[in-house]
């Protein structure tokens, strides 16, 4: 039996900056996971991933990452995605420089 589909967000890196970005429901790329479209339907997820992958002059390496609904929008389920949405832990660089996102 196929495994049950778990909610996803579409994420990638920005082509010019390299920064982690997320696809929003209104077709923008946001640097904030909380703004991402949380996709609960598998077929829709595949379509959204294709939408993302077509944008070769904007983004690199789009994929579906597991996420869950949180109070302020999607939240990561795995620590790798938690680091990606935050930045490194040895310096307050990356996203921590502009939009503080204390780790839960």
């Amino acid at each position, binding site marked *: 039996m196929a495994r049950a589909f778990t909610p996803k967000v579409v994420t990638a*890196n920005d*082509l*010019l*900056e*390299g*920064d*982690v970005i997320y696809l929003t429901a209104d077709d923008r790329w946001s640097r904030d996971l909380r703004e991402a479209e949380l996709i609960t339907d598998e077929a829709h997820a595949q379509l959204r991933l294709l939408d993302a992958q077509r944008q*070769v*002059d904007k983004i*690199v*390496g789009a994929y579906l990452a597991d996420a869950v609904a949180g109070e302020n929008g999607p939240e990561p*389920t*795995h*620590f*790798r995605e938690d*680091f*990606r949405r935050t*930045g*490194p*832990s*040895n*310096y307050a*660089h*990356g*996203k921590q420089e502009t939009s503080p996102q204390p780790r839960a």
Partner: protein
Amino acid sequence: MYRYSEFDKAFLTERNKQFRAQVERRIDGSLTEDEFKPLRLMNGLYLQLHAYMLRVAIPYGTLNSAQMRQLALLAEKWDKGYGHFTTRQNIQYNWPKLRDVPDMLDALAEVGLHAIQTSGNTIRNVTADHFAGAAADEIADPRPYAELLRQWSTDHPEFQFMPRKFKIAITGSEHDRAVIKAHDIGLQLVERDGVLGARVLVGGGLGRTPMIGKELSDFVAFDDLLAYLEATVSVWNQIGRRDNKYKARIKITVHEHGIDAIRAKVNERFLQVRPQFKGADMALLDQIKAHFAPPAFREGSVAAFESAYSNDPVFRSWIDTNIAPHKQADHAIVTISLKKHGATPGDATAEQMRVMADLAEQYAYDELRISHEQNVILPHVHKSDLPAIHAKLKEHGLATANIGLISDIIACPGMDYCALATARSIPVAQQIATRFDELKLEHDIGHLKIKISGCINACGHHHVGHIGILGLDRAGVENYQITLGGDATETAAIGDRTGPGFAYDEIVPAIERIIETYLDQRESPEETFLQTYRRVGMAPFKAALYPEARANAA
């Protein structure tokens, strides 16, 4: 120091021009990422977790002050004010923007530096003993040969699309500071009947299948060495496995075919290749050697040094840990620690880079080295200058007296930066260093190498750490395996796993229990951790790490 010829300069200018055009074509959409990726990797540009990363080669770990200042400029102008020195004598910039990278490469070219072949399935930056040309125990300076290898391997047409990457390390000393036994090819310079040559080791490597290099030849004279190395890489390039990335390195080829069969194939290929080498390489080597002539060592009294050593305990402690013997008795080799307690191992700010460049220019015949242990070396310093150097280093957070001690940790970038990582390395290193500094046990513990990798690829050399730590993802949680008894020197050994791993918040206490056990077990303060481990074995450490297992067994 090697100075670029007109040919070198023209080659690099052309190469950088090509890459600039490739970046432009990527940005305007004419190249897809699949097309662009191999091109950017050939030029040292990765896409990591949060940003691009540019890996710049520091060939055989040697820099002059102008080059170090340029590295500082790159850090300040196009990055976040710092750089990360790696275990393969490279420097990595963690935050470049794609559009800026061509300018960064041009700036590097101005001082004879590049990022070519710091990635991809090519022959990578040739690394060398960081004390080369200065060590009291060396037969010859290995760097001229390393430079010859750099020129030979750069854009070598046969070796651009190999089964996997290929790493060469070279040392001129019996005492191995370049980890030659964990490289695809390890070279140790040896002299036989007045002829200089190399002992050739092959098939060493860490990663998911760690192997200690085996002897391919006990002596190949310099005249034949380049042909012999070309034959070796060529044999592997043909028979190395391309069906499975994890079985592609030469260590697996050597393991599957056996060293004797590989030697026979290499010898056969060598006979074919040898006539193509008509002596031009040796003529070139002679020219290169002239670039590496030792400086005119100055003479003078060392009284100022001796007086500071007797009177200043902080200076004395630094001398006792961070200074190595130089071939000139009145000179010393200074290792500048990039491992201040609690700092990121191997990181230096632009300001620190400039301070080190200034010191090199003023006191060290304009030479710097980067070690695979992620520290910086002033290879030639007259002893009377040591107090002034120490004072300057102290002002800039660079005078930590911990070389070879528990806080002199190798750590890969781990999941704080690396896209391949399965767990973090840097915070584990920071916490261990901070903890043992608080306990004030560091100097009592003595010589101890901790090496941490954030994934099985082992950039942090954990297999050859006296204590190795490997960070893994176990069911979505960071988990750290420990190995004991590894050794990166001429007596190289792969460490033994202690048992089940430890959670992120359990790893520092686990290391503490290992150290308590060592202090308890050692016969005298002179017996190092590694010696104790070799004498008593795993059992007491296991008992300390897994008391519940012992209780259950009882």
